[in-house]
């Protein structure tokens, strides 16, 4: 049950991030006329489902971190490439399999940025937790 809840929460977070990305991308593409943009309902549903799937997939990819016999470095590398391959495949599908150098660089750059933000925040929080714990232990 815990696993299912975690999976669903990750999917919802995926929707959140994906929708923000969608809005920003739409605004950048339409320029000054962004207030009058009309969005296709089909497109919106597709983004909702796709971003949920990406978020949920990241949750599953996180199972890599349960391989405690691996070093953290190995866990991160495996997780990074598993997520990257899935994300790249997804982008390829929504771009009608049109592959170019520019496409590769943009997709890779966007993924690396998202990965850095997501896991950077996670490890920063972990660092803060350890600091907080040590502070509490000193008080005892």
């Amino acid at each position, binding site marked *: 049950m815990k696993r299912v809840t975690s999976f669903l929460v990750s999917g919802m977070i995926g929707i959140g991030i994906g929708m923000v990305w969608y809005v920003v991308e739409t605004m950048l593409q339409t320029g000054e006329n962004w207030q009058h943009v009309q969005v296709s309902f089909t497109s919106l549903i597709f983004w909702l489902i796709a971003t949920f799937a990406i978020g949920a997939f990241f949750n599953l990819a996180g199972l890599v*971190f349960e391989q*405690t016999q691996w*070093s*953290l*470095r190995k866990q*991160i590398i495996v997780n990074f490439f598993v997520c990257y391959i899935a994300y790249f495949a997804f982008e390829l599908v929504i771009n009608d399999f049109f592959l170019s150098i520019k496409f590769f660089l943009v997709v890779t750059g966007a993924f690396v940025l998202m990965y850095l933000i997501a896991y950077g925040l996670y*490890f920063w929080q*972990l*660092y803060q*937790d*350890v600091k*907080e*714990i*040590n502070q*509490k*232990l*000193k008080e005892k």
Partner: protein
Amino acid sequence: MKVKFNIDNQLPEEHAEFWLKKMTDKFSQLGKELSGEQDMVWCNQDDEIVPVKFENIYLIQVESEQTVIYDEAQNYRYKGRLYQIKNVLPHDFLTASRSAIINYRKIDHLEIMDGGNIDVIMKNQIRVQISRRKIKDLKERLGL
């Protein structure tokens, strides 16, 4: 949670009652501690069988397929498996990893290692790795 103690030295028998929305591991463990009388465990040291009090235990971990218990200065062999001793331990103990249980009251500090792993340094200077997932449990025990 509100806690109320009713002190009456004329009571024929002491008892505790909990009113909960649902049973959790924390209260299950608390119940065991309050109702149980076991406060130590029998261990092997050299050729002797000695009692080791829970309050003196710093760390319990699996080494070479044996369960080893550490107190401040010595270590002992426990005949059972880790999960078996885990069931009788009081609330002072938390699982650090699949192969180690620590007494959180005996922790000196934590260190983040170069590889990103986190070590717990006990007050007797023994180091044991703690899973990142267990950091949240440790925070709860410390009231953070």
